[in-house]
């Protein structure tokens, strides 16, 4: 008997780590690493990207303020993820269907929901789900949207909408849930127009990425479903946009689904409900990510080109925040949801028992 094993599993395992570097256009020092892609953006494009990130950070800061004042319900902080969220969503078209996760409220607003509606969603009011955008509400179950995205994408294909796709998001934790694989596998098996985005922000509440899986990258999880996938620098909005746009073009050309893993970071807590990131990560863990901040990076490029100034940005932030204050005032004006209305909307035709309950609550609510 030979001593050599029939298979060198260790070599196969090691080979899994042999992956391409994440796609990047602008590095941490704001140096262009992909001139060709960089040159494809006009000055106006660059300013637009910056504006979107400034808008998202202002939205985050103002929403956190509202949250501290006790004026919000569930809120998942987005600071640090602006490049990943805005870069990918800017590649969407209005006719695309968005299936966001709970941290993807900024994308939902970009896709057509109003800030007032987003605030009402946070507060738990049905009007927060009645937006006109072609989108589902932010999904709470981390893998579920991947399954539904396969169905929405099949619907788009069956409806013969040639320039539309389903965009869906989950986080690094979401890739551990079986549904994320089922969704990608269905999309792959049926070759439907779906774009699966994993925003790998390092932590699923307190559980670090390395405890989610032994897979060296999350992008690799799409390989088993036969779907092309790629890692992208999630702190580089130019790369996030360029990759999402390329994916959308590839998908609308009839090539089936794509998966993108963005390498990003959540600066704050998982949610405003009180988890303390200091319990599960150190300043040393976090500092390098602050240094990669997507706003600092693009701001430097724009300033070098004479397209941006602190004064301009301060003014912009002030305007955005004023508009968010108007939005929350609008939300304040909305009367609370009624139980009688909730019962009415459970079934198209209320059951006999529900009809009695509706009467009971209409009376209770009229007092």
């Amino acid at each position, binding site marked *: 008997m030979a001593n050599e094993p029939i298979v060198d599993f260790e070599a196969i395992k090691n080979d899994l780590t042999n992956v391409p570097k994440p796609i990047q256009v602008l590095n941490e020092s704001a140096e262009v690493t992909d001139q060709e892609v960089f040159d494809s953006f006009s000055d106006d494009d660059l300013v637009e990207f910056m504006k979107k990130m400034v808008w998202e950070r202002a939205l985050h800061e103002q929403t956190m303020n509202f949250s501290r004042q006790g004026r919000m319900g569930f809120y998942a902080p987005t600071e640090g993820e602006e490049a990943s969220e805005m870069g990918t969503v800017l590649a969407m078209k209005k006719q695309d269907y968005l299936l966001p996760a709970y941290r993807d409220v900024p994308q939902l607003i970009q896709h057509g929901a109003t800030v007032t509606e987003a605030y009402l969603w946070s507060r738990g009011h049905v009007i927060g789900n009645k937006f006109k955008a072609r989108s589902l509400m932010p999904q709470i179950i981390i893998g*579920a949207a991947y399954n539904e995205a396969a*169905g929405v994408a099949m619907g788009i294909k069956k*409806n013969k909408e040639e320039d539309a796709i389903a965009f869906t998001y989950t986080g690094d934790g979401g890739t551990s849930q*079986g*549904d994320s694989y089922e969704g990608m596998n269905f999309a792959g098996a049926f070759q439907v127009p779906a774009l699966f985005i994993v925003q790998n922000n390092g932590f699923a509440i307190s559980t670090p990425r390395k405890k989610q899986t032994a897979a060296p990258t999350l992008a690799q999880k799409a390989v088993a479903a036969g779907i092309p996938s790629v890692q992208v620098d999630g702190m580089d909005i130019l790369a996030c946009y360029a990759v999402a746009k390329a994916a959308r073009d590839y998908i609308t050309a009839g090539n089936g689904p794509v998966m993108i893993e963005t390498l990003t970071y959540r600066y704050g807590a998982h949610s405003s409900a009180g988890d303390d990131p200091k319990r599960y990560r150190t300043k040393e863990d976090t500092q390098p990510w602050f240094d990669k901040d997507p706003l600092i990076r693009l701001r430097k490029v724009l300033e070098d080109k004479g397209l941006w100034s602190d004064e301009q940005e301060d003014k912009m932030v002030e305007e955005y925040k004023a508009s968010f204050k108007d939005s929350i005032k609008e939300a304040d004006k909305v009367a609370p949801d009624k139980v009688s209305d909730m019962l009415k909307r459970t079934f198209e035709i209320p059951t006999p028992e529900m009809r009695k309950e509706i009467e009971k609550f209409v009376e209770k609510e009229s007092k």
Partner: protein
Amino acid sequence: MAKKTYIQAITDALDIVLEDDPKTLIFGEDVGKNGGVFRTTQGLQEKYGEDRVFDTPLAESGILGLATGLGLTGWRPIPEIQFMGFSFEAVDQIVGQEARMRFRFDGTKTSPVTIRTPYGGGTHTAEMHADNLESYFTGTPGLRVVMPSNPYDAKGLLISSVENNDPVLFMENLKLYRSMKDDIPDGKYTVPLDKANVVREGSDITIVAYGAEVNESIKVADKLAEDNISVEVIDLRTVSPIDSETIFKSIEKTHKVVIVQEAQKMAGVGAQVASAISEGAVLSLDAPVGRVAAPNSVYPFAQSEDYWIPGADEIEEKVKEILNY
């Protein structure tokens, strides 16, 4: 009009809804070329093509997620879960996602899905193939649970379920698939959802049953008629919501009731019926509410199944006990 089995009646209904509405889609494991493991979808792919009737990867959550998404984009999906025991894999998609769509969006978005699945014991299947799991789903607002007891109802209720704009869990009794035949009208007819059916009128005692136990109850009614005992048998047909009015009306006449179910006794449809009676018709009763159900064990392995499932003898015994109270 032709004599058809329960399964042929279901195939007939599926054929009609596919013909009627080009937005209807049938999909699941082996439903295409194979026509389903029970042949329920036999011939439908051939007739309507692979775009309308197709096989999916073997993953229940994926199948139901596909249904939700298709429903949201204007389609009317009729997914199949090959055996109801496999529905555990899809509970989030059914309960957490599909059933809540209308509620979440105040009716501005809905997903009209009809989930078909076989359930029920007596055919000596492998584990997880026969469990009566209706009680897990009857507690779900926004989801109707329909359980036909005969071929005629199976066809009419399935057409009503597909045409309904809210999700329906349509449970098909495995043992009934080929064990009974009815005269089935050709073409389209419907049987209303949310309405129980008085399948046999009587004046001494009411039996409330559903699924295969309706037929066991009818056997008991036939037998007791020979002794001049008049038994009214009510078939719930839709087990969520329950048609309490029909039950109350019957109890006002008979003053006695026995509730029969194939599932374990704990927290199920029978418990809900008993509770509705205690709230709405207790003064019409002159005996306790009788219950016949399977014991609260895990669903048995094949060999002990026949002892475990309540049959006509147990129903008869309970009916006599309540009559003689």
